[in-house]
């Protein structure tokens, strides 16, 4: 709500100073939103499906089973596909922690969750094109693995 208030005040202020410019700003906002509508719709559909296919209890189940190295790969894949908003992701990470899941796994899961987005991919492609969107997501995936490795070393879960 605060966000709406701030936007409203700025817009009002803008209209008082220069109505023409402000009308142009609103037109830009409308046109840009319309331009990404198809990819936004694709994203909405993907999110609704992914949330259905990967509910919380299933995520906990996937991350808590099997051998370590396999677990890291699974956590990275689930994190890349899952569409968990930030304010749910960390309580979920807390639950994972309480279930005895290692920091390494949690790090790879939360980092891929944030840096790799299968559901946001259609929107990313409209802005950056297929190739760069793909490169960016692969980089995110690799960074997540490195982060997890170093977190594992730091917490003494991974030994060289």
């Amino acid at each position: 709500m605060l966000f709406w208030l701030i936007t409203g005040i700025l817009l009002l202020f803008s209209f008082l100073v220069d109505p023409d410019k402000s009308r142009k700003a609103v037109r830009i906002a409308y046109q840009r939103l319309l331009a990404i509508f198809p990819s936004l719709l694709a994203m909405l559909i993907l999110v609704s499906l992914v949330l259905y296919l990967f509910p919380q209890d299933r995520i906990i189940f996937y991350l808590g089973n099997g051998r370590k190295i396999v677990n890291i790969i699974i956590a990275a894949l689930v994190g890349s596909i899952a569409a968990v908003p930030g304010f749910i992701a960390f309580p979920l990470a807390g639950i994972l922690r309480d279930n005895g899941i290692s920091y390494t796994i949690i790090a790879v899961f939360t980092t891929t969750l944030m840096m790799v987005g299968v559901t946001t991919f259609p929107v990313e492609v409209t802005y950056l094109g297929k190739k760069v969107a793909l490169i960016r997501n692969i980089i995110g995936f690799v960074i997540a693995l490195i982060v997890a490795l170093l977190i594992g070393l730091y917490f003494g879960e991974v030994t060289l």
Partner: protein
Amino acid sequence: MKKRQTKGKSRFLKNLYWMGVLVYFIYLLYSWLFQVPSGREIGQNLVAYLLTMGKILPCSFILIGLFEVWIPREIVEPHLGYQGGIRGYILAIVLAGTMAGGLLVALPVSSALYHKGARLSVIFTFLGASAVVRIPMTLFEVSFLGVEFTAVRWLVSVPLIIISSLFLEKYLSKEKFGIK
């Protein structure tokens, strides 16, 4: 001839996309009418996510519009462009950290910055940081996983994001690349 082929291909993909959307909504309607649990749950997810986005997106785009008309290129370019140096990356990370909405908002913002003269590596840093260092989310992370976890994650991921952004910029400088 080749142009016509790619045109045909993109039209085919477009049709496929709209057919998928149609099938999806028919399934939702069918589930809603005949009480199919899977479809109803998917529908609920859709509505919930639509509401979350509806709260953030219109405002974000209006702010982007205001940015476009009020902030001249002369202000953005010296800080986030090639003359900006290290300051550009720091600004990008601070901006990303204080912004709400994640990638969905960061993408249109980065497009606006790009057209005002921000360099690509700063933009890729901004996009990467908007995923990793968001302050409100980080506070949450600290309370659930502890300061050390967050500190290590930041210290590792931020330099990697900057380095990979520089490489990506260098790679793309050889091709015709632009952000829409």
